Every structure is written in C-alpha cells, then in structure tokens.
C-alpha cells in the first residue's frame, strides 16, 4: 500500500524529469564508434586502405549498436557499408546491406530501391560483356 502510494507520487516526478531531459544519461541515441574519423581520413586520402579502415569502423559500430540509447544501428550505416562493398566490386553484399537499411529505416526505401536498381543494371551489363 505504502509502496504503491510512493510509486504514484514518484511517477509524475519521473515523467517530468524525463521530459525536461534532466534524467537522461549522457549517452547518445546511436553508437557511431569511429565512423566520422575514418570517413574524414578517407576524404583526406581515398586509398583502398582507408576505405577498408572505414568499412571496419562501420562493422564495429554495427556490432556495438547496443551501446546506445536506441540499441539500433544508426541511420545510413548499413547503406554506407553496402556502398563500400559496391566500390569493392561485391554487388551481392552491397544489395544485402541496402536491403538491411531499407528494412531498418523505411524512410530510405525510395532511395535504396533506386540504388538497388542501378546495381542490378550494372550487374547485367557486366554479365553481357
């Protein structure tokens, strides 16, 4: 009984704290790991090594997606990973990750469908020649 009353008194307080942000832990919605730094390094020098390092950074961030408030893989990460596979010539993995992006973030479906179509066309062209 007493506990129930206390809970009732505390609940609105907790709700207010949550809304104002006072109770939020200093943790991000998504875990990006070292994605930004590796992307920056790749922009400075678009070498195969730097592309590989970026790929590794994204894979690690995906593995550690749980270390975040949302526990989700961040927007664009599967797409960015798929695009790296595409650059490396692995169209199968590329399409796989574009599909992953689409299923996790339906907002990307329109764009991902277009990109997958482009990959398919490139594959068909490659098979003919």
């Amino acid at each position, binding site marked *: 009984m007493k506990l129930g009353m206390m809970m009732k008194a505390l609940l609105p307080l907790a709700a207010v704290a949550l809304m104002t942000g006072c109770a939020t832990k200093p943790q991000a*919605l998504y875990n990006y790991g070292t994605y930004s*730094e590796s992307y*920056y390094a790749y922009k400075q020098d678009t070498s195969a090594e730097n592309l590989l390092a970026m790929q590794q950074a994204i894979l690690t961030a995906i593995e550690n997606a749980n270390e975040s408030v949302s526990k989700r893989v961040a927007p664009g990460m599967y797409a960015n990973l798929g695009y790296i596979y595409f650059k490396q010539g692995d169209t199968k993995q590329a399409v796989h990750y574009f599909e992953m992006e689409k299923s996790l973030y339906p907002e990307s479906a329109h764009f991902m469908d277009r990109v997958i179509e482009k990959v398919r066309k490139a594959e068909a062209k490659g098979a003919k020649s």
Partner: protein
Amino acid sequence: MKYGKIAALAASIFAAMIMTGCAAHNAGISKGEAFPQMYEEDPRSILVLPAMNESTDAEAKAYYATTIEMPIAQTGYYVFPMEMVSDVLKQEGVYDTELLYSMSADKFYDYFGADVVMYTRIKKWDVSYMVLASSLTVTIESEAYSTKTNEKLWDYDGSVTVDLTSNSGGGGLAGLLVQAIGTAINTAAADYVEYAHVANARLFFALPAGPYHPAHRTDQGVVIRKR
C-alpha cells in the same frame, strides 16, 4: 585515443543539452515557438545536399560532409547516407552546387523520398595565427525546406571560434559549450572537423526531436534561447 576525444565531445554536448532541458521553466523562446512548422509537418527524414563552399579552404566541403550525419541522426531523424547522396548526384549530373541549389525542394522527394532538404553554405573555415595565440573559426549557414510544400522550415547561422591557447569561448550557453569542447580537445592537434562538429551540434540540439528520439512530440516547451 581519437574515440575518447569524440566521446568527451559527445558528453559535453549532452551536458549542454541537459542544462537547457533543466532550464525549461525559465522564460524564453521554446522549440514549439521557434519551429512551429516542424511540429505541424512532423518530418521523418532529412536530406543534406553537398554544401556550397564559400570559404577559402577548398577541402571544407568534403570535410564538412563527414560531420553532418551524426548530429541529425542523434536528434532523431533519418539522415540520408552522405557519401552515396553526393556520388549519386554527381552521376545524375547535378553535382554543381549552384544548379543543385536552384532546384525546388519537391524534386528531392521524387528522387530520394526525403521529407526535408537542407542547403548549407560554408562561409568561413579557417585558422588565424597570431604571435602567441591562434584561433579557429567555422561559420555555417543553413536552410531547410519541406519537400511537400517547398516552404522554408528553418534557417540557421552558426559560427564557432575557438581560441586555442586559452579556453575563452564567449558568453552564454554557446560559450559554455565551446569552452567544454575546447578543454576536451585542447591538448590534441587542432582539427577543423572538430569545430564543424560543434557548429552542427549547436544547430541540431535546438531542433525539435525527430521520430526516433524519445522526446519526439513532447519537447515543444523546451527553451532553446533567451527571449
């Protein structure tokens, strides 16, 4: 090492966010007052176009692109993958930013399915050296349009200057933010991208929380600046 730096940066930004959150009872401009159309339209996704570089640093545009995805996503919106977006635009023959910026916003819905399109101008991206001190400045202007109505949803001018020798960063919340970040990176080599992160963070923590954020649709009352 680098990871720690970014973690410290993220922590200081969140500390600033929490401070503003706690100050919600003070009189000031709230998110609801500042961004009425954002609450009305409730967009889910943001497409960031390659920036228009008006600074003296030719590389600014490419480097800026590496800093923009995270703050938008952390605010709760879906953000389109930057590298793919800029490459696809290049292939479509509209990489010339002048041309890109003259296109109406609804075109970007047709191609990407984006709810909001964001145009960014990098005004300043430089370091000034003095005898004893040096400072870094990153100045960004951005405008966001609805792809449904072609109406402007918000605009923003942000400038971050950091004195690299002492930790003075100006007054108010922005000053505190810069100070906190200045401390975190003071020992490391000066890096422009860190400052673009700061400028971006300032803009995005003011925006209404997006659909993937727990505060979505409940943060209208959060005060973001003094009246």
